[in-house]
């Protein structure tokens, strides 16, 4: 037992290379799918680079058991996430919660996209106005 835990911790330290195989099978396939998605969403606090689904450490196994039991007991995904975050903090959630504190992060891609398209659009409008007043004189090959 001692040797095994030591080996786990060492493997963690080496590079997080060790992985665990989770053979849990919930009776209901839909539950199983939710279980797999959720365990991939929760960060293993010990081997901090893996989800609890992939982590070989004992704590990850405990947390997986917790997820399985709660799902079987009829809790929703969000309730399980909240349960974990209440104990381990938001650090455990690989998918950041949508809240005032993370609004900037979730808004970022959309804001960038809209902003980028607006900027590009304005440039194109200005340039196409210029193009309209310029004759076709230059030698522009077809290759890039």
């Amino acid at each position, binding site marked *: 037992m001692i040797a095994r835990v030591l080996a786990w911790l060492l493997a963690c330290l080496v*590079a997080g*290379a*060790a*992985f665990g195989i989770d053979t849990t099978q919930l009776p209901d396939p839909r539950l199983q799918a939710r279980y797999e998605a959720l365990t991939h969403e929760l960060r293993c606090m010990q081997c901090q680079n893996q989800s609890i689904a992939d982590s070989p450490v004992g704590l990850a196994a405990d947390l997986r058991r917790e997820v399985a039991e709660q799902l079987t007991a009829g809790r929703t995904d969000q309730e399980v996430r909240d349960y974990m975050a209440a104990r381990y903090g*938001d650090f455990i959630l690989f998918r*950041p919660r949508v809240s005032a*504190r993370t609004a900037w992060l979730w808004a970022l891609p959309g804001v960038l996209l809209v902003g980028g398209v607006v900027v590009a659009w304005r440039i194109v409008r200005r340039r196409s106005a210029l193009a309209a007043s310029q004759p076709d004189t230059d030698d522009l090959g077809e290759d*890039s």
Partner: protein
Amino acid sequence: MLPELGQFALILALLLAALQAFFGLAAPALGRDRWLAAVMPATAGQAVMVGTAFACLVASFVRFDFSVAYVAENSNSALPLAYRVAAVWGAHEGSLLLWITLLAVWTVAVAFGVARLPARFGARVLGVLGLVSFGFILFTLATSNPFLRLDPPVPDGRDLNPLLQDPALALHPPLLYTGYVGFAVAFAFAIAAMLEGRLDQTWAKWTRPWTLAAWAFLTCGIALGSWWAYYELGWGGYWFWDPVENASFMPWLIGTALIHSLAVTDKRGLFKSWTLLLAIIAFSLSLLGTFLVRSGVLVSVHSFAADPARGVFILAFLVIMIGGALSLYAWRAPLLRSNAGFEFASRESFLLFNNILLVIAAATVFGGTLAPLISDTLGLGTLSVGPQYFNPTFLLPMLPLIALVAIGMHANWKRGRLGERGRPVIVAGLMALAIAIALVFGYYAGRPGLALVSFALGAWLVLSSLFDPLDRLRRGLSMPRAIIGMTLAHVAVGVFVIAVTAVETYTVEQDIAMARGETAHVGGFDFRFDGVDAIDGPNYDGVHGVVQVTRDGTPVVTMHPEKRRYLVQQSVMTEAAIASQAGRDLFVALGEDLGAGRWSLRIQIRPLINYVWLAAALMALGGAIAASDRRYRHARAAAAVPANAGQGSTA
């Protein structure tokens, strides 16, 4: 003796890099043309000294010199020769020396290249590279010296991290760094152009082949790392959106934008300040990646041992180099004006949107990667950002981009008419849609939605890219390498999109506990577990499982997933067994001994995953072919003559 020689050579290299930077930058600035003659010797000397230092470290590894601390940490008397050489870059100190060595190699190549360019410009390029080199050598000597001796020496070393004892990973850092460092060349050209005030588009023409080459190397490096993660880490995944992966991916995205932006600047004299900025950002992100990996500010699988002192040093270097470059940019860029026009559906317009979308994708990855740090700094609490964030947000700019590429390739410069090419683009689009429908509803039978869209986009891109070259062939027109390279790279992107879609949508996976003789039925295949046998390697022992795979009773393959225990570090590694077939990989990894002859196994069937690597290799090949186009060599040969002013440039 050798380590001392290496250390001495590195100190000399530092001094020569200082001279290279000083003469390279000061001679043109002060107008002392006689000093220009000193740049080349300093450059050559620096390269020789760096090469000597590197050779000394390699020799220390090859000769098992465990009196050198770095060798003792990362090698062992049982380590095979090839990995002793690869162990040179197996940890922080040596990988920095590799970085410096590769920079020296690029610098020498550039020195030959710029010999045909105006002397002052060439001197400035080499000067900037000398400055980069100086910073990294100083960093190595000050915080990360690989030549330090152990007193007393140890009888044997602690061995190379077993994860790194793998051919792909041995090659991954050199390729990746060659790419990173290559962007230093584009950076140096941009800085030299700004210092020179030579802000017409000639610098873009000179920079293009270097950037393409760097991009090709970076592509290879990233793909190799991803391939390694796939077969070595045992998870069966190939991209985890880990901070360090992202650190290599951001320069790639910006580098991709830069390649296209350079094309516009070269061809039309447009986007000049934007191209300069991209050249600066691409290299900045390479430096930032170095910082993120080595400073310990982020939690990552691959990062080196954290040391805040190193972080402070790199940060200071970052502020000086990038801060300096961006200050220069703020001063020079306003002088860049172009009144060249282009219409709405012209190629310029498509490439503009391409650039914007690529930069948005890079910025999204950047935001997600640094979010834990930013959140912590602003007092918003700790958080983690994983694939569940990156996957959807990355697709947001990328899917429209693929569509734009499929159309934009056929657009004309300046004029917004697809003309006679419009029809084939539409036909290709309809064919792609048919292919996607056949794949989703026929072959893979199920899960439409995003898969349908991405299949269609990928197929559209492939078909659309092939149209122009086929047309050229039919009409007997010449096929410049730039066109071949571009076509290859674009086809590869299409293949990549299709392959990733298939992998992400149609992978079948089962984690299962199996006793000897039991059979698992996964994705139409039967996997029979026949127990485990002991194995014995040069520096490890362990077991391998025997898994007989059959399909409808016909034997397919026998697979041997291994579980190795490396003796020196006593670490356990999984070596997954992978059987590649034409359309899919069968993947079996051996988990833990559950007692009573039962083992946990991970069985996956991953469709088209080979095409992910194949596509990456094709992209890199395309970049390399395009980089070797004759036009760039002509461009350099002709550069001594004042470059054609280009329309509308008022530098």
